[in-house]
C-alpha cells in the first residue's frame, strides 16, 4: 500500500557529508546535495564520477561510510521504497517471463494491488507505443522495447520520486524523444525526477536543475539559469561577410576589449568563423557594438555557455582543457553510438 505523503515540506533527497570508499578508491567524497520536491534534476558527471554509487546509497542498496541521507523526509529509502521509482543503470528483465507478469510482479513488490495493476499496465503500454505485448515473453522483445518495459517497471506504482540512472543509454533518437516527453509529463504531474547522465547536452535540454560531480566531489549545483549566470560567456563568435578561413584576423584583434582571436575552419554546417575572447573586465555589450561598427558582418553573437564549456572550465585547472574536452566528447559520442 502506498503510504500517505509524509513530511511534505522535507526535500525529496537530502545528502549531508556523505563519503563512500571501496577499498582504496574513494567513490564519493564528502558530498552535500539537496533535491527540492518537484524538481527535474540532471545528475551529471563523467563515467566513474560516483553517480551510480551515490544513487545506490540513496536507494539504501548499500550504506554510506559516513554522512547522512534522508529520502522523502525519512532516514532511509527502505522506509519509502514504495514511493520511489528507480531505474538502475544495470537493469534487466526476466527473460522467460511475460511482459504483464513481469510488470505485475514488480508492481506487487512495490505494494500495488494486482487488480489496479491490470488496467494500469495496459494503459502504460499504449502510452509507450507497445500495445499488445502483454503476453509476449520479455526475451521476444527488442532491446529498445525491453528498455521501455524497464521504464514502466520503474513508474508502474506511481512513485513520487523517480530516479533514473542513465535512462537514455541504448535508446534510439525516436525512443529517446519519447522518454523525454514521458519525463516532462511526469514532472508536470509534480513528481520529483532525477536522472543521471554523462551526456551533458541531454541534461541541458531537459533539466531545470543540475548537479555535476567528478571524482566523487560536487562541482556544480543549481538551476540552469543560475549556473549560466555564474559562468558568463566570455567568447564572441564573429563571422565577417565574405570571410574565408585563413583571412587576416588583425582587424578584430585590434578592437578594444578583445584579448585574442582564434580562427575556426569550416566544420559540418558551421561556416568558418572567428572566436574572440574578451579581456578581463571588458563590457560584453560595448565590445559587441564596437565589432558591429568595425567590420561588415554576416553574424556576431555571444556564445551561450554550454554545460560542456562550464564543466571543462571547472575541471581544467587540473587537467589540460583539450584533454578534458576530448574525454567528455568521446564519452558522449560513445554513448550515442551504442
Amino acid at each position, binding site marked *: 500500500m502506498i503510504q500517505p505523503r509524509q513530511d511534505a515540506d522535507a526535500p525529496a533527497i537530502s545528502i549531508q557529508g556523505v563519503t563512500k570508499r571501496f577499498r582504496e578508491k574513494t567513490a564519493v567524497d564528502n558530498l552535500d546535495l539537496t533535491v527540492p520536491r518537484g524538481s527535474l534534476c540532471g545528475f551529471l558527471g563523467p563515467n566513474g564520477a560516483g553517480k551510480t554509487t551515490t544513487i545506490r546509497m540513496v536507494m539504501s542498496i*548499500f550504506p554510506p561510510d559516513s554522512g547522512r541521507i534522508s529520502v522523502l523526509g525519512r532516514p532511509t529509502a527502505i522506509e519509502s*521504497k514504495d514511493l520511489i521509482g528507480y531505474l538502475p543503470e544495470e537493469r534487466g528483465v526476466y527473460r522467460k517471463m511475460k511482459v504483464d507478469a513481469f510488470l505485475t510482479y514488480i508492481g506487487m513488490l512495490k505494494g500495488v494491488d494486482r487488480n489496479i495493476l491490470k488496467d494500469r499496465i495496459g494503459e502504460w503500454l499504449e502510452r509507450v507505443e507497445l500495445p499488445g505485448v502483454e503476453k509476449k515473453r520479455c526475451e521476444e522483445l527488442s532491446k529498445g522495447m525491453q528498455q521501455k518495459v524497464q521504464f514502466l517497471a520503474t513508474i508502474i506504482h506511481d512513485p513520487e520520486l523517480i530516479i533514473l540512472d542513465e535512462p537514455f543509454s541504448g535508446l534510439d533518437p525516436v525512443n529517446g524523444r519519447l522518454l523525454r516527453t514521458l519525463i516532462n509529463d511526469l514532472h508536470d504531474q509534480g513528481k520529483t525526477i532525477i536522472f543521471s547522465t554523462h551526456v551533458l547536452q541531454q541534461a541541458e535540454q531537459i533539466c531545470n536543475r543540475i548537479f555535476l560531480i567528478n571524482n566523487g566531489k560536487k562541482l556544480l549545483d543549481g538551476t540552469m539559469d543560475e549556473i549560466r549566470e555564474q559562468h558568463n560567456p566570455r567568447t564572441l563568435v564573429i563571422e565577417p561577410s565574405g570571410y574565408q578561413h585563413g583571412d587576416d584576423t588583425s582587424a578584430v584583434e585590434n578592437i578594444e576589449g578583445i584579448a585574442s582571436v582564434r580562427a575556426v575552419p569550416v566544420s559540418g554546417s558551421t561556416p568558418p568563423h572567428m572566436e574572440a575572447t574578451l579581456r578581463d573586465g571588458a563590457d560584453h555589450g560595448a565590445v559587441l557594438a564596437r565589432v558591429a561598427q568595425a567590420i561588415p558582418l554576416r553574424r556576431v553573437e555571444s556564445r551561450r555557455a554550454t554545460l560542456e564549456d562550464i564543466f571543462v572550465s571547472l575541471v581544467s585547472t587540473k587537467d589540460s582543457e583539450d584533454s578534458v574536452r576530448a574525454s567528455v566528447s568521446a564519452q558522449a559520442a560513445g554513448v550515442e553510438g551504442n
Partner: protein
Amino acid sequence: MWKIYAAAVREYKVTALTPAFFIGAVIVPAVIWGLMFFVGATGLLDSEKPPMQGRIAVVDSTPGQTLTADLSDLFSPEGRARAAEAQMQALRDQINRLPPEMREQAMNAIPMAEAMIGADDDGTDVDIVPIDPNEADLEALREQVRAGDYLALVVVSEESVRIPVPTDAEAGPATRDPNNLGPSQYRIDRAPSLDPDYLGDIQRAVHRVIQNTRYEQAGIDPATVLLIAENSPQAITTLVTEDGDKAGPDADLVRFLPFIFMMLIYASVLTGGNYLLMGTLEEKGSRVMEVLLSAVSPTQLLIGKLIGQGLVGLTIVGIYGAVGIAAADRFNYLAVLPSGVQIVWMALYFFMAYFFLGAMMVAVGAAVTELREAQALYAPITFSLIIPFVLMFSIMDNPGGVVARIFSFFPPTTPVVMVMRLSQPSHSVPLWEIGVSLLVGFAGVAVMVWIAAKIFRIGVLRYGKPPTLVGLLKWVREA
C-alpha cells in the same frame, strides 16, 4: 511480509507451474517406473536370449559313470519339465502356508514365476556326449570346444564325488590338471560362445548330480534332502508397538526404509536448492537484480526465494510420497511406514534440511556470475550432503548408536540423520533427542540464513572475479 509473499509466489509459479517441471518431476519418473514394470511383467529382456542348443562332452571317470547318466536325464525334455513342475509345486506349497492376508498378494506372483521358470518348451536342445575316460584325448576335446563343436567339456573324477573328509583341507591349492582333480573339484572348459547364464545352468546341473551321488553314498534319499532344502524355516514376525501389532514383512526391506527416506529428502532438497542457485544466477545475469532491490531489501528477497522454492521441494516430496504410499499399499507394506506424529517430525526435518542447504545455494548463486564458478564454492554443500551418505550403513544398522547420536546434533547433518533414525521401525528415538536436535538444527538454519543474507547483500551487485571461500567469509565479517 507482503513483499516476501509476492517474491515467494513468483518463485513457486515460475518453477513448479511450468511444463518443464511437470515433465521433470512427474512424467519422467512415471515413464521410468512404467518401463520397469512393463519390462518386469513381460519378461522382455529375458526372451531376447536364444535358447541353449548344442552338445556337452562329459569325461566321467567315476565308477559306473552315473554322473553322465544323471546329467543326460536332467537335460532331457522330460527331465526339464519335471524340474520346472517341481519348482512350481514348491512355490505353490510355500504360498499356501503363508498367513491369509499375505497369500492373496503372493498368488499374483505365480503367473510371473511360470513365465520365468519356463515349464513349456523354450527350444532348449542339449545333448550330453559321454566320452570314455580311458580313451579321452583332452587336448583334442578342448580343440573341439574352441572350434564350437561342443558348448563345454566337463571332467569329473572319483575325487569330485567322494564324500569329503576333514583332511581334504590339506590337499593344497586347486590345479588345472584334468587328470589330477583335487577333492570336491571338477572341471569345465567352455566355448567362448557359451552364454554365462547357460554356464551357470550347466554348473548347477553338475553340482546337483554330484551332491545327489554323495547323498546316495551316505545313505540319504536325495528327495528328502530336496524337501528339507525347499522348506526352510519360516518366521512369522510381528512388530509389537504402542500403536498395536504390525504384521511383519521381511526385515530386509524395512532395513532400507531409512535409505528411501534419505533419498526422498535429498531429491527434494537438491531440486529446490538447484532452482535457487539457477534463479539467483539468472537474476544476477539478466541484471534484473537491482530492479528487484529497488522494491525489496536483499533479506526480504532471500527469504521470499527460500520460501517459494521450499514449497517447490514440498511439492516434490508430496508427489513422490504419494506414489510411495500407493506402492506401499499395493505391496502391503503400509504398516511399516512411519506414523502420523513421526511424519510431522520428518516434515520439520525436511524444512530444516531444505533451509540449511537452500541458504547455502542462494549464497553461492549470489556470489558468482557464472554457473561454473559456483563449483569452486560447492565444498561446504557437498560436505554436508556426503556425511550422512558415508555414515548411512552405520546409522541404519545402529540408529541409537554413538555415531548416529553425534551427527543428530551437528546442524549440517541433523535433519538427514534424524529422518533416517525416525524411519527405522525397529528403533524409537527418545523424545528429548528430537527436541534438542530440532533446537540445534534450527539454530544452525538461523545462522546459515544470516550468513547467506550477508553474502547475498554484497554478492548480488558484484560482477567479475568470483570470491574464494575465504573471500566469502570476509564478506560475512564486513557486511
